């Protein structure tokens, strides 16, 4: 078990290092923060002073090493834009993002899993086809398109809900639905195929041959087995609680982490971008780890290998 955890953590740390390095390389090579933040018309001395202040005049590998050195001392750096600690900037935005992603997550689970189970149990019925058509639409329509359609209908045409901003909880409804519908579609399809796979297994027929009523076969025999593959996609959704709202936050001008990321990338505000990426990578890694541990809980066949 300890060995398993150590390997997982090692791999997680490696993932994070790679992500952060990648971002460093891309942001540093794709533009000059001094120019994007100060404006190209700024006097050369001011630009030079800015570069010296932020260490941008050093060779790139020195910057890179410094940057990593700082991270290991728990120092994530300051925003080049307003000089405040990047971490503070990011943390400030987290509640706003969670205010969208948590209800959306609940909606994905509450809608997607029952719809997928129902569709599998009534395979090829009209309901199955409707659910699956809806699910396909839910995840093939890009969220910015879905978001814009919802805005057009409910904000512009009907005037029932605000089209953006963060004035009241009602502003959250459209972005939450936008994310929730898409995710529910993904989850419904996944749950359906997991259920169909399990329902075709011989042990389901054994349970029926034992005289287990169908409802109990579904609940006691099929669902616990179908949960094993489904947990992967749920874990993925947990992992995207922080970062999964970039597009939707932009469409609805919602002041969350995603919008901060878009603005920081545009400004080549490296410390902020890095800080968000670290956070995102960490949530992903933690949720993957949780999923792995849950596999062990749900599937006794995997338990022997990890302990």
């Amino acid at each position: 078990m300890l060995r398993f955890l150590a390997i997982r953590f090692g791999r997680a740390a490696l993932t994070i290092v790679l992500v952060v390095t990648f971002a460093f390389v891309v942001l540093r090579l794709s533009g000059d923060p001094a120019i994007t933040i100060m404006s190209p018309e700024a006097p050369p001395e001011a630009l030079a002073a800015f570069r010296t202040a932020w260490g941008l005049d050093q060779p790139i590998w020195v910057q890179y090493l410094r940057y990593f050195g700082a991270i290991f001392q728990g120092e994530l750096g300051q925003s080049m834009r307003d000089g405040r600690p990047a971490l503070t900037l990011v943390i400030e935005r987290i509640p706003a993002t969670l205010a969208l992603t948590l209800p959306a997550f609940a909606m994905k689970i509450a809608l997607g899993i029952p719809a997928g189970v129902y569709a599998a149990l009534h395979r090829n019925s009209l309901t199955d086809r409707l659910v699956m058509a809806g699910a396909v639409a839910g995840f093939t329509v890009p969220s910015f398109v879905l978001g814009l359609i919802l805005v057009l209908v409910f904000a512009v045409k009907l005037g029932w809900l605000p089209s953006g901003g963060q004035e009241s909880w009602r502003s959250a409804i459209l972005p939450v639905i936008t994310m929730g519908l898409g995710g529910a579609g993904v989850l419904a399809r996944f749950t359906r195929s997991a259920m169909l796979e399990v329902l075709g297994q011989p042990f389901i027929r054994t349970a029926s041959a034992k005289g287990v009523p169908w409802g109990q076969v579904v609940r006691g025999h099929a669902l616990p087995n179908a949960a094993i593959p489904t947990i992967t996609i749920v874990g993925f959704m947990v992992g995207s609680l922080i970062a999964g709202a970039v597009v939707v936050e932009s469409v609805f001008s919602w002041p969350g982490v995603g919008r901060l990321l878009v603005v920081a990338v545009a400004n080549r505000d490296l410390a902020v971008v890095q800080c968000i990426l670290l956070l995102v990578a960490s949530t992903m890694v933690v949720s993957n780890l949780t999923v792995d541990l849950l596999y062990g809980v749900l599937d006794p066949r995997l338990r022997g290998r990890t302990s």
Partner: protein
Amino acid sequence: MNEPLVAIRGLTVAFNGVPALRGIDVDVGKGEAVGLVGESGSGKSVTWLAALGLLPATARVAGSVTLGGEELLGAAPARLDDVRGGRIAMIFQDPASALNPVHRIGKQITEALRLHRGLTGAAARAEAIRLLEQVGIPDPRRRIDIYPHEMSGGQNQRLMIAMALAGQPELLIADEPTTALDATIQAQILDLLRRLRAETGMALVLISHDLGVVADMCDRVGVMYAGRIVEEAAADDIFAHPAHPYTAGLLAALPDMDGPRRRLEAIPGFVPEPWAMPPGCAFAPRCDRATDACAAAMPAARDVTARHTATRHTAACLHPRVREFAL
């Protein structure tokens, strides 16, 4: 045999319009052991899955299956749930995939005990341990808390049998219970089934490819070919005097246990595809005794019982001298 325990009459099954069973009649008496043999795809499994209502909804099932006079085809689901695992239990070919991988051994058995005997808690656990002991699983007190993947194939098949016994069935249907197992384990499982039958007096339907095993275990044998029963007789009888050329062919293909090893004589030709059944006898294209009449009409089962035998011997063959073969 007066009133049979289970009587199957004119059972037909079709999948998406393609017939798999084309009129099956089988009786199983109380405590009797009936064997069902035939090549792969002949419909042995489908017969009993259909009888218990275990086929997918896409299967079209017609005919009649009665248990103690009560019709099972089309019976209410709750009624069928009482019968399945209660009066009739069934075990399958590949125990590893026939057991729920996320349920402990104990739970697999106590579930049946709860459903059919109302046992729960400590009483159910104690009975589950007794059943594991009865089917010869060593150290049942520890085994009861492990999972199927932690046991061997042979032990999993014993577990399947323990599950089946939990409902104290009057009939156990064993669908190729040893096909997936090693030869030595096969013999052990067959011995176990024989012993349990002696202990409980339950009837047995043994589905197998292996005529030898069936002749050894069963009172009566039915031979299936292309969705029909082509011959049925007492086990000794069918061995000594096969009336149907298909049975004769199967026997010729058996390795000779006593004599010197000789080449197996496989029956030439192939089983016709279910969607391209000839109008007459399905075996006629492969049969060296076939005449023009065989291709024209589907042969009904004829009584070919010899005078000195007690058990009825029937064969679905049009050959004019089929009676003589059975002598």
